């Protein structure tokens, strides 16, 4: 996951308003064809995709931090190994996604700079802290669970490299969600303190997880064009509903209570009614005022700045070797 509120460049045009190339492009999308890097595409399509894929990639990278927070304190060697494998996968997902974005003519370094300058975003969820070991379970269960909802849909997205990256990523994400749920099962069936940690993690992460899908459809100003281009393939509310419907029985199985008094099965719609998250909090977090925004960005900037000598050193060495080869030829 993890693209929210991606600004779509370009206003939705009728067929009559499109020029010939735009019409042919839209016809390909409507026919379910994949768009490939060498194909012509509207500038708005390209820019919107860069924003969305870039935001998704940044989320994978920043997402290492809340989980990394517990690697050194994982309570068994096996849990530690599994968490390391998961975080390694996530860095790998970041790499596929940056590569997919690079096919659109933007470099990883440019995107990284924009992240550090606050010109590109990452998912709001990673601005919440992981305070107990149960949070590592809840992140896998809820956050990866929400991410999968979005990413399974995005396997059908119109841009070929993005769609193919999603296919690979989804396979690994389902393992992540299972490891999270496995931690939650152990905690919920454990000592009273462990059960308390599990419930506390659900209480704190439930609404931030619902926010991962972005604002309600009625307030989602960027969706129409992205849907027409099949950059987005489901609406925010559709995915959020699906997530709630999937997650409620899982919480019941754990014996945990979802922190929503209005949560109720609605037979007529075949899904749960539930409370919306506090959208003011969502906007506050996006504006930089979440509990961890400053720390997350500071950690990423420091890593980048402290690593400059390393990157420069490798480039200098490669140049020296290239010069030696030239001289030898």
């Amino acid at each position, binding site marked *: 996951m993890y693209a929210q509120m991606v600004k779509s460049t370009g206003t939705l045009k009728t067929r009559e308003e499109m020029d010939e190339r735009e019409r042919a492009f839209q016809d390909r999308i409507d026919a379910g064809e994949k768009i490939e890097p060498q194909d012509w595409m509207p500038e708005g399509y390209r820019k919107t995709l860069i924003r969305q894929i870039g935001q998704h990639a940044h989320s994978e990278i920043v997402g290492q931090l809340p989980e990394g927070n517990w690697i050194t304190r994982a309570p068994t060697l096996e849990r530690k190994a599994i968490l390391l494998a998961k975080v*390694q996968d996530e860095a790998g997902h970041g790499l596929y996604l940056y590569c997919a974005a690079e096919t659109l003519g933007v470099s990883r370094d440019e995107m990284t700079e924009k992240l550090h300058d606050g010109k590109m975003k990452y998912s709001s969820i990673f601005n919440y802290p992981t305070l107990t070991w149960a949070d590592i379970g809840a992140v896998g269960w809820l956050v990866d669970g929400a991410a999968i909802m979005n990413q399974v849909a995005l396997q059908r997205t119109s841009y070929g490299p993005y769609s193919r990256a999603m296919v690979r990523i989804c396979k690994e994400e389902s393992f992540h969600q299972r490891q999270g749920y496995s931690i939650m099962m152990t905690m919920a069936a454990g000592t009273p303190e462990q059960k308390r940690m599990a419930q506390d993690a659900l209480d704190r992460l439930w609404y931030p997880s619902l926010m991962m899908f972005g604002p309600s459809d009625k307030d989602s100003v960027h969706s129409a064009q992205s849907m027409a281009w099949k950059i987005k393939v489901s609406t925010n509310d559709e995915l959020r509903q699906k997530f709630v419907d999937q997650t409620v029985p899982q919480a019941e199985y754990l014996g945990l209570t979802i922190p929503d008094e209005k949560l109720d099965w609605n037979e007529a719609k075949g899904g749960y009614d539930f409370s919306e998250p506090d959208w003011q909090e969502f906007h506050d977090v996006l504006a930089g005022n979440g509990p961890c925004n400053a720390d997350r960005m500071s950690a990423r900037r420091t890593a980048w700045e*402290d690593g400059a000598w390393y990157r420069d050193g*490798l480039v*200098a*060495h490669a140049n020296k070797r290239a010069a030696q080869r030239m001289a030898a030829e």
Partner: protein
Amino acid sequence: MSALCEFALRMGDNTLILGHRVSEWCGHAPVLEEDIALANTALDLIGQTQMWLGLAGEVEGNGRTADHLAYKRDAWDFRNVLLVERPNGDFGQTLMRQFLFDAWHHPMLKWLSENSAEKRVAEIAEKAVREAAYHLERSADLVIRLGDGTDESHRRMQDALAYHWTYTGEMFEADAVDGELADAGVAPDPAAMKPGWDALVGDVLAEATLAVPENDFAHKGGRRGQHAEHLGHILASMQFLPRAYPDARW
């Protein structure tokens, strides 16, 4: 405690503590590829820890598991060399520590996998040696590239070498346990590994344009439980949950 148990603890504690240190980098590496490589290295080391400490518990025969040994011993019962508990410092220090260790670890595992008279030791080494070969290839390559990179990367790598150098001799010290294991053909005499290490490290440092430090002093003590101040802090975070909630299963 038997010599075999002691040996398995020494091997497993090295990989546990180095794995812990490497995992501290998660999300903070200088480039995304390094985040992936460091997580992968830490994962290998923790996997090897499970095997070595599992063997130590089995040989000891008191029902202690690998997790017991990792999470319920205090610093004085840890048997890792001091080198692996050295702080991460900048990325150059982390990388140099890894290289100096890998240059010992890989030949050690290779010897064990090919020669150990103790089948269980040979089997663990057989699994671990392929990972250690990759670790060594990677760390040696990066030491060369950064040593012979910019003036700054050269200076940092030279400083890192000086920072760790006096902690390398401990890997080759021998005590009664080592003597017993060498006599039984279970493990090599540590001192016999030194010429190979000197040659390998010498070649890599030469290609990296780094000078071998002249100081031949060796800090010792880790292998008999006398550690630096660092280990206690590592254990304080690593062991926090099982210590704070002793009745819990995770």
